[in-house]
């Protein structure tokens, strides 16, 4: 047993005694006379710290490739060892992420459940929250500002808009903090980091499903008939989820590097909300103001948030006709989803190995 261990050290010592390694070691052993024994092969490296070393604690060394790397690297290669914490290839990354799908689902459900577990009303808040939100917007925009003029079925119109927008908004907000707010998790366990932003988006999707149940009741109360087109809500949600997850991953990477972005996002998102026609009708505005520059209409209508909101309205509200949608709306919706989803995923994966540096 002991001799086994000795041979291991003998090997380490061999590596150390290579001239290129020695150069490095000598630099670190400037203080002589502290070597106990010196007869042993492992050559322990005790040395008294000097004042200059103290400063080194706070500074990085010049990043030079150490000359000895080739030796240990060769040993590693010979035994088929892989670099720890290296970024996996994209297909491998996707495979690992898929392997963790149960964790992603369990984590998002757990987050959702934990959210209201201390409240007396408990999970009722899942539905109450969006409803109260919609009531506030109705009071301000519907009653006080009279945005509802000329918009048929204004309450369903508004509530659908608020719910669908909230999905995108909360997904992006939680995505921004996905890495920076979970450093403990990132530093403690090994899993593809994309699991975090995706899991948070999934949590918001579950939240939205609660809201959709409330929405169905509201629609029926306000006399919107059940129609086959309600099925279209499913593809619309799938596309929106893909888009949200993609943007979340982009924001997660940015937020991991610059946590300040989390402070900025609420303002960006509020601006985005006001131009997305959540509480007013874009096509209504365009038909009333013919003096607007010609690019305003297409830009407003191609805005992904507006596209997903209007698709949902088109699916659920019978008075919201296809004529109020921009041309090729499904194509635009799919395009945004693919662009954000695939682009965001690759962008996030590119920095996989850097997450957790703090």
């Amino acid at each position: 047993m002991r001799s086994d261990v000795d041979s291991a050290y003998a090997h380490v010592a061999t590596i150390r005694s290579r001239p290129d390694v020695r150069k490095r070691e000598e630099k670190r052993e400037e203080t002589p006379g502290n070597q106990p024994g010196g007869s042993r092969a492992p050559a322990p490296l005790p040395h008294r710290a000097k004042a200059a070393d103290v400063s080194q604690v706070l500074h990085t060394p010049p990043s030079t490739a150490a000359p000895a790397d080739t030796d240990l690297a060769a040993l590693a290669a010979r035994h088929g060892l892989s670099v720890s914490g290296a970024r996996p290839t994209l297909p491998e990354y996707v495979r690992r992420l898929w392997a963790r799908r149960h964790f992603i689902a369990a984590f998002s459900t757990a987050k959702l459940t934990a959210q209201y577990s201390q409240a007396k009303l408990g999970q009722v808040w899942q539905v109450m929250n969006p409803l109260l939100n919609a009531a506030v917007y109705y009071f301000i925009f519907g009653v006080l500002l009279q945005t509802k003029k000329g918009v048929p079925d204004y309450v369903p119109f508004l509530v659908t808009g608020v719910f669908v927008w909230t999905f995108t908004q909360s997904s992006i907000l939680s995505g921004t903090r996905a890495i920076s707010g979970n450093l403990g998790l990132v530093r403690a366990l090994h899993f593809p980091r994309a699991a975090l932003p995706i899991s948070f988006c999934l949590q918001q999707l579950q939240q939205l499903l609660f809201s959709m149940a409330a929405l169905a009741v509201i629609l029926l109360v306000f006399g919107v008939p059940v129609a086959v087109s309600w099925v279209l809500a499913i593809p619309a949600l799938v596309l929106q989820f893909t888009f949200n997850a993609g943007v979340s991953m982009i924001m997660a990477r940015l937020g991991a590097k610059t946590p300040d972005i989390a402070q900025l996002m609420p303002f960006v998102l509020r601006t985005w909300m006001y131009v997305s026609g959540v509480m007013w009708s874009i096509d209504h505005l365009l038909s009333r103001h013919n003096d607007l520059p010609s690019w305003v209409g297409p830009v407003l209508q191609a805005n992904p948030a507006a596209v997903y909101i209007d698709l949902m309205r088109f699916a659920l509200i019978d008075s919201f006709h296809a004529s109020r949608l921009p041309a090729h709306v499904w194509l635009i919706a799919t395009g945004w989803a693919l662009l954000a989803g695939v682009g965001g995923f690759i962008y996030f994966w590119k920095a996989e190995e850097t997450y957790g540096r703090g």
Partner: protein
Amino acid sequence: MADHTPLTDERTPTVIADGVDIVYRVNGTGAGRGSATAALNRMLRRKQAEKASGVRKVHAVKNVSFVAYRGEAIGLIGTNGSGKSTLLKAVAGLLPVENGRIYTDGQPSLLGVNAALMNDLTGERNVHLGGLAMGMSREQVKERYQEIVDFSGINDKGDFITLPMRTYSSGMQARLRFSIAAAKDHDVLLIDEALATGDGSFRKRSEARIRELRAQAGTVFLVSHSNKSIRDTCDRVLWLERGELRMDGPTEEVMKEYEAFTDDKPRPARKPRPKQAPVSA
């Protein structure tokens, strides 16, 4: 010792650290002139002004190289803040290295699951969540569920596993965490100190479990301040001091030096040096 020729292929290396440097960057230490101006400075001039603008770099591990072999139990010792846990996290691939490389055989795992658990959820759901977070499949978690609960002893005094974790005493929380973390088998196992907590009987059980894990794992790293547990479990010791590998050798030899060092100078880093070079922090 002369009869031992350096053998390369007889023992299989499982972890190779090759000149590893680990650097933490800390924002907002107020080291620059006024944090707002410093922040602006940092944004405008990025790299060049990192030091001047209040980003402190903490060089936690400096140029550490070692080779760990299959079947070894390696202790990591050193005074507080000497970089032991940091090095362990880097071996686990959880912290990026600044320079150098760490090669591993398979995926080393850190024994610990605390961060994935949620205090607002029941113990039952936390067992599931923790198991999944460690990379177990749903079937594996189901299979081991009863084992984990029994090991933790949470249900000894009644049906506590269905209560939220925040209602547990801190001892019970620690026991459940350890039980979840220890439920998985590992190739290269990294154990950070203070995992074996709880009362006497649980401590005995967890020590036995760690020995069991050691027997299954290829290589074990143990960070501890308990010289006794290092002597009990490890046959090789790495001594880190202020981020540098100060000694690497058989347990007894290194421990002797280390004990002499800690008895001799309790806080070496804090002592003012007589020949202080004019360096800025």
